[in-house]
């Protein structure tokens, strides 16, 4: 089956790790992930500026590696990201902001990408909250 997975929580939320483990199990089960779409506080799960203590899980880094290793389409909602101060190089330049905290493999795009994923997939699974 084709899955669209949407994440609404930051990397430190248990649901972000849960979503990642689910996504890994989706691929391990022979299914396809059409797109990962990060919305609301999920944009923070794509941040490249997160620093975790050595003895803790770096879920943001794990998400990055998962998307890269499996060549997945990882989209971060641009409106939600801007509102929360998650900017790639283009947006940081556009708005004269001092920091870039979104980089490859993540792409900023609109909610249309969420709808497109839902239309292409057989299942939409959302993760968020605790």
């Amino acid at each position, binding site marked *: 089956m084709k899955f669209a997975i949407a994440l609404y929580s930051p990397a430190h939320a*248990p*649901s972000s790790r849960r979503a990642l483990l*689910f996504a890994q199990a989706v691929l*391990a*089960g022979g299914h396809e992930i059409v797109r990962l779409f990060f919305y609301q506080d999920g944009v923070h799960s794509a941040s490249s500026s997160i620093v975790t203590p050595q003895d803790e899980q770096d879920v943001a880094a794990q998400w990055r590696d998962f998307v890269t290793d499996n060549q997945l389409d990882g989209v971060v909602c641009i409106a939600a990201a801007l509102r929360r101060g998650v900017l790639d190089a283009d947006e940081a330049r556009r708005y004269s902001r001092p920091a870039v905290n979104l980089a490859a493999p993540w792409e900023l795009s609109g909610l249309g990408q969420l709808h497109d994923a839902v239309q292409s997939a057989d*299942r939409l*699974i959302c*993760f968020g*909250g605790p």
Partner: protein
Amino acid sequence: MSTLHVLSHSPFTDTRLNSCLRLLGSADAILLCGDATYALSASTAPRQALEARADNLLLFVLDEDAKARNLPLPEWATAVDYPRLVALSVQYDKVNTWL
């Protein structure tokens, strides 16, 4: 149509479980994960609410969350791991996560 409802908030501070139980369809199931697993704590109102429906509600619990919280599961709840959760998401027509 059948829906798998996913809950992760503690039932003691939050209304999601109550609202979900009100709106549950007859073919629907519930997955408790994260802090929603506390709904199975003994001698609590959420546990009683779930037990009252045990005959016609399929209740799944994410195994790692129940184990982390040292919550023994009643026989009317089924522990699932991630591969089984993927299978459930295929089996049910849609998944409704109470974000």
